[in-house]
């Protein structure tokens, strides 16, 4: 049976060890750096407009809420990640085949067929979804209470909000990008403090588990990121 599951009681475990003392210094440094990041509400988006950013904040807060165990999407700074991705190569579909003719209504099994790159899907998808929210829930998504937001997201996930075929991928992009921002290396702006990795017990970029293969025990060390910081 597990004895020292770091992802549950890491702080109490580390507090009692000499290694904990050393790790705590580094952890403090990592946290000190995180503290220098501007609060989410004051972040200036590179791509998203203020209204779009408010939507991304509100939507990701429901996709991975802060309540319960583990960080939520806002704690992990997922909106910053999404904004930076949309501002970069991912947003402009730099790697994708974007030659026409486009048949966005083709069978979904044949993959994405829209002419819109991901950043544009967000740009057109957010107001289209907001119209549905206003019609059925009485307000823009970001202004709804959390129960109404969950109803709206459920409808979006079921393809029930009347989006055009060009926006068919809006839901899957939003959910996928949210999980990417939750679990990515912190260099991309999400997974702040590596708390998402700590929560599930993923040790990040340690890159060597030779002495841990086949051992039925909880791995005792917390994660490191690519920059070499410890959580």
């Amino acid at each position, binding site marked *: 049976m597990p004895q020292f599951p770091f992802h549950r009681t890491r702080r109490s475990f580390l507090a009692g060890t000499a290694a904990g003392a050393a790790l705590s210094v580094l952890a403090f440094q990592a946290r000190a750096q995180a503290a220098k990041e501007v609060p989410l509400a004051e972040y200036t988006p590179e791509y998203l407009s203020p209204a779009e950013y408010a939507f991304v904040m509100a939507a990701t807060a429901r996709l991975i809420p802060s309540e319960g165990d583990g960080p939520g999407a806002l704690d992990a700074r997922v909106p910053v990640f999404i904004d930076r991705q949309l501002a970069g190569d991912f947003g402009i579909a730099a790697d*994708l085949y974007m030659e026409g003719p486009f*048949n966005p209504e083709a069978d979904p099994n044949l*993959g994405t067929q829209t002419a819109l790159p991901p950043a544009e899907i967000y740009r057109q998808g957010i107001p289209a979804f907001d119209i549905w929210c206003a019609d059925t829930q009485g307000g823009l998504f970001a202004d709804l209470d959390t129960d109404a937001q969950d109803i709206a997201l459920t409808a979006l996930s079921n393809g029930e909000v009347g989006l055009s075929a060009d926006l068919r991928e809006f839901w899957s992009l939003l959910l996928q990008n949210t999980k990417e921002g939750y679990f990515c290396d912190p260099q991309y702006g999400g997974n702040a403090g590596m708390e998402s990795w700590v929560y599930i017990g993923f040790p990040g970029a340690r890159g060597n*588990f*030779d002495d841990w293969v*086949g051992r039925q025990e909880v791995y005792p060390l917390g994660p490191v990121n690519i920059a070499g910081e410890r959580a």
Partner: protein
Amino acid sequence: MARTDPKKDVVIIGLGWTGSILGMELAQEGLEILALERGPDRETVPDFEYPKVIDELKYGIRLGFMQKPKKSTLTIRRTLDEVAQPYRRLGSFLPGDGVGGAGIHWNGQTWRPLEIELRLKSYVEETFGAATIPDGMTIQDWGVNYDEMEPYFDRFEYMAGIAGKAGNIKGEIQAGGNPFEAPRSRDFPMPPMKQGVDAQMFAKTASALGLHPFPRPSANATQSYVNEYGMQLGPCNYCGFCERYGCANYSKSSPQTCILDALKRMPNFSYKVNSEVLKIELAEDGKTATGVTYFDEAAQEEVFQPADLVIVAAYSLHNVHLMLLSGIGEPWDPVQQTGTTGKNYSYQMNGATSLFFKDVEFNPFAAAGSNGISIDDYAISQIDFAKEGFIGGSYITAGISNGQPIRGISLPEGTPSWGASWKQGIGDWYGHAMSIGSHGSNMAYRDCYLDLDPTYTDPHGRSLMRMTFNWKDNDIRMTQFMRSKIEPIAEAMQPDSWQSSYKAEGAQYDVRPYQTTHNVGGAIMGTDPKTSSLNRYLQAWGQHNVFVMGASAFPQNIQYNPTGMVGALAYWAADAIRNDYLPNPRPLV
């Protein structure tokens, strides 16, 4: 516009596994060789350096080492009357590009096919009767037999440094190995990998059920190793970043770790990167190639590179695309059933059962691409096709290859995909799930093939290739049979819960989720120019100085990962070129 460069003895298209092998073998003959690679150069340092390669978003999700559809893709449809749509974003399969090709980002599972798989059609007809083969299934024999290929499997495995445990050495069954495998002349060059908790649990249960577990053969080294070219591998440290990544640790067999540094020292070998071959040029009579035309990205111009011998060694799909664009062979016509180029494209039929154990710590991040425990009790050679109603088989494995969280955390059925319950689910179940997977054969069919798309073009103005492919009842029955064998094993392991995912009746090919990059066929080898593109030495029937490497030569897919067969065929063809063709260039059959 096109520049013409001085003639070479040999031009090699693509510098992955087979291009590197042919480069080395033919360089040893003293020939002047130029390899043309469409992608960038890649070396362990700096391209796979720790820690920057341990980046799930960049390489595992944004697919940093893979082909960019913007530069090269194909169109896909399921049936002859559907309009094919471009494969705009990579999903179902992930072709590589750049030096090393798919050889850098594979997991390293390195198998040999069964003896009967190389003469599948004859085996089925002799054993079960020709009527067992359903209408529309176009399986064929390969034109080579296992015994003559055995030295070349051995050569590839010792060059690449494969870790495993033999189950059959010269007919003697070996305890702890795969008793159903074809006979080997000797054991693997390295002992098997360490096994995770999941594989150990599976092995114990499988043994108790009277099955025959053995360690999966692996191109992840288990000790320090020096191969025939003087290249060195170091033991794998189970970093958990194998498939989709280059290896930071010189442990995964790849062209980089096993061949290229030695090859680059050969003064008569050179290579150019960012040089995509556009066409294989043929002589006026069409009976030989005169060289290739490629696009030199640095010079921004087309170049004609004359050569006496053309080795086509790109990824299987690109080999076929080049043949279609160059007029090598007649295109396959699925209605008239004439022609050969593009014929018998096939894939791989896989399925899995996931098991959840709340009190077991699997530590999925402590993993390698190809450790794991397999059974081959339901191999293609062990099944009565007449009784079961399908042709095919599968090996079955438990072996976690990574614990990367964006790529997916297995959650019990009914867990929502978002919201508070999802978050609770990942906390509860990360590290507490394993799976038992079936890796199965896929037969060839009249209407599963490759040709040129009528509408879409690439940046060079060439027609994209069009893939027509769908799942067929035969292969769905095979995977459902495997389900019926795997689920009792899963139940016997007494998980808290389990769930299955196998293709069911009516399943339609979906290009979106990743399935496997085992795309085979389209330039198939065989015994008859009317029914195959290549003879048994991988030589084009119509152009004797064109040899086509790779899994495009498979007449239908085997039940195993293809690289072992691809490597053996490369050495087999190289041997024929060195000892038979070069002294007297001609059709070898």
